[in-house]
């Protein structure tokens, strides 16, 4: 992590042109960022999202970024005092609000906000270099939205770290030493049913899968899912209804295509796999968060991470 933007390879001409075009509008000069530096920042972002940038013209991709906020964040990361004045004026109280909204508690929220603030300011040093999380802001969304996701991630990490940390005394009180042996694993689903189900799920659009997962796996409310997708709650309700009917139909078709009779297929669909579902959920939980929100990166593009 660098406290200032690293001199990178010469930005492409397209990026330079865009930088020159937007330099006067994004307020970069106010924070001491030159046009060349702006071009380098844009080049980093384009490089990070190379696949998305390839699908979209570079100029269009760059113009879609939140350039003023990107400039502010990078200026703060570079230690510009004027930028920090602006940042604090805009987002200090916001941080506390976000913290309280996430933790649902004032003290925890302020603590969360203060810890993030320290990370943002770069009070953490790594290898003698001040690490600033603002360097990871790329301008795809707003700074406020990015701050929300960062704080949410930090909160989840804290929760899981605390969960894993158990007191031996507490375990003794709970009678962990008398825990019963693990029960026999439940029988797996009929492979034909698994295959037919996988086929039906693969055919679904990503949004439909997300809705199913959020509703049936996470237990999110229709309103929360609707807010995520910026649609009306009734839209989600209708979508789930429609998906249930279509999935049933497609799985039945797949099962009959695999040699089951209609009756057998129907019986297979009605098989109770609740226990099985719960077990899978537990196993999935144990796999994270170390890999998901690490201090180590998980497959992140080189040179950047999620902090």
């Amino acid at each position, binding site marked *: 992590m660098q406290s200032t933007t690293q001199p990178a390879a010469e930005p492409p001409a397209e990026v330079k042109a865009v930088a020159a075009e937007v330099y006067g509008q994004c307020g970069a000069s106010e924070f001491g960022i030159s046009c060349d530096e702006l071009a380098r920042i844009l080049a980093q972002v384009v490089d*990070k*999202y190379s696949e998305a940038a390839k*699908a979209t013209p570079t100029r269009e991709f760059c113009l*879609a970024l939140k350039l003023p906020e990107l400039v502010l964040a990078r200026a703060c990361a570079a230690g510009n005092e004027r930028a920090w004045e602006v940042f604090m004026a805009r987002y200090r109280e916001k941080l506390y609000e*976000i913290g309280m*909204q*996430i933790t649902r508690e004032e003290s925890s929220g302020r603590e969360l906000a203060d810890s993030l603030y320290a990370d943002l300011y770069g009070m953490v040093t790594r290898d003698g270099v001040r690490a600033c999380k603002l360097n990871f*802001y*790329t301008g*795809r*969304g*707003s700074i*406020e*939205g*990015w701050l929300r*996701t960062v704080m*949410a*991630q930090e909160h*989840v990490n804290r929760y899981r770290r605390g969960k894993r940390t158990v007191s031996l005394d507490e375990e003794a009180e709970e009678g962990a030493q008398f825990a019963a042996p693990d029960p026999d694993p439940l029988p797996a*689903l009929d492979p034909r049913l*698994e295959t037919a*189900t*996988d086929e039906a*799920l693969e055919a679904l659009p*990503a949004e439909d*899968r*997300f809705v*199913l*997962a959020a509703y*049936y*796996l*996470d237990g*999110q409310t229709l309103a*929360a899912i609707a*807010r*995520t*997708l*910026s649609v*009306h709650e009734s839209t989600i309700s209708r979508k789930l209804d429609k*998906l*249930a*009917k279509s*999935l049933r139909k497609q*799985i039945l078709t797949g099962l009959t295509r695999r040699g089951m009779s209609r009756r057998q297929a129907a019986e*297979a*669909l*009605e098989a*109770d*796999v609740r226990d*099985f*579902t719960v077990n*899978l*959920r537990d196993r*999935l939980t144990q*796999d994270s968060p170390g890999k*998901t*929100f690490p201090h180590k990166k*998980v*497959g*992140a593009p080189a040179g950047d991470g999620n902090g």
Partner: protein
Amino acid sequence: MDQVPNSVPARLQAKATGNHPDLDLLAALAEQALPERERAQVLLHLSRCADCREVLALALPPVEASSTSLDTARRPGFRWPVLRWAAAAACVVIVGSAVLMKRESIMSRSMQTARIESDAKSAASRDERVAEPGQPPVESVHPPALATSGPETKVSPPAQEKSARQSALQGALGPHYAQRGATGMTATSGPGAAGGMGATGGGAFRRYPAAPAVPGPLQGTPDELMAKMAPKAAGKDFPTEGRPMSEVTLPRAADEQVAAEAAAPAAGSLQDNGADQLKREAPGKAKAPAARMMLDRMEASGNTVQALGQNQPSAEASRAKKSDLFRAVSSNLTVSRWTISSDGKLQHSIDSGKTWQPVPVAENAVFRALSANGPDLWVGGAAGLLYHSPDAGGRWTQIKPVSGGSTLAADIAAIEFTDIRQGKVTTANGEIWTTSDGGQSWRKQP
């Protein structure tokens, strides 16, 4: 809501593959700032990664604190709260407009009615002021049998008053009223004519009680009526030549109540020769429904007596005149009138007596009696001279009543037809001949 098959949640829990999306991408997804392709990729990962879903769910702002970047193309433009208020506002506008329009209509009608009534009142009071107590009757001119008894039937002002309002009022109430003022004659008599008749036959004319203000039913469209009633020339007198002596126009039902009350103040000034009676014939039967319809049309179209008050200096006088006209209209005033001139000629007026046109009946025929039921006319004269026209004088047929071997040969003093079939002819010597079939057959009463 239908539930998915039980196998679906189990298979949904596939482990996430590939890179976790950048936190900035998650924020951009929540703000709907990602292009469609990239959004689908992030959602696909989210569908398989519970952790990322958990972070995203926590990172979503509260509803009231949603960032403005959420207002993207994915946000539906159809907002029920906005539509609800828009519908409420539209209802208020529609109801308010309807109420205003209704109120304007009601106010307009009430104002018209008020103007008409006040015009009538002021006209009545004006008539009292200007009605001359008495004019010396012309020789043998009979007093006006049409003096009215009510305020609505005041005698018309003298002709010296040249205002348009008076002309219109005179036209509405009857030419006999105007005559009185203009020529000094009685309101119901013409120059000399009545006297002659009265002189020759004491009972040549029978006086009828005063009719209500209006002599007869209106004929013509409301526009024509208003045009005629509007003052054409201030102070224009009624024509003296051929001034009818029996131009009383009575309502259809007023045959028995000749307008003796027509001009109460003038009644005193009219000479009444006692036995002399001035028979007044209704110029035309009023068609009450038609008159009312025309009145309604006049009111609706705004053609009220307002036209009469064009030259009125005062609003009160204008209102009085309008009121008079209103009453005239409502009392089945007819524009078309018939009369017998002083020299025994049949005359017709289509402007309520302002002007008269001679109607040829028979050469050298002199008539003294007249009966008109719309277009059905009967005229009678000396020596049993009797003519009938079913088409308002277009063609005439001489009738010779015969009954029991005797023929009507006396001077006809009066003709009364209640309708086109039922009629009675009275002679100077007291004979009474009746018919019930429009003159096809007659019966002489004993």
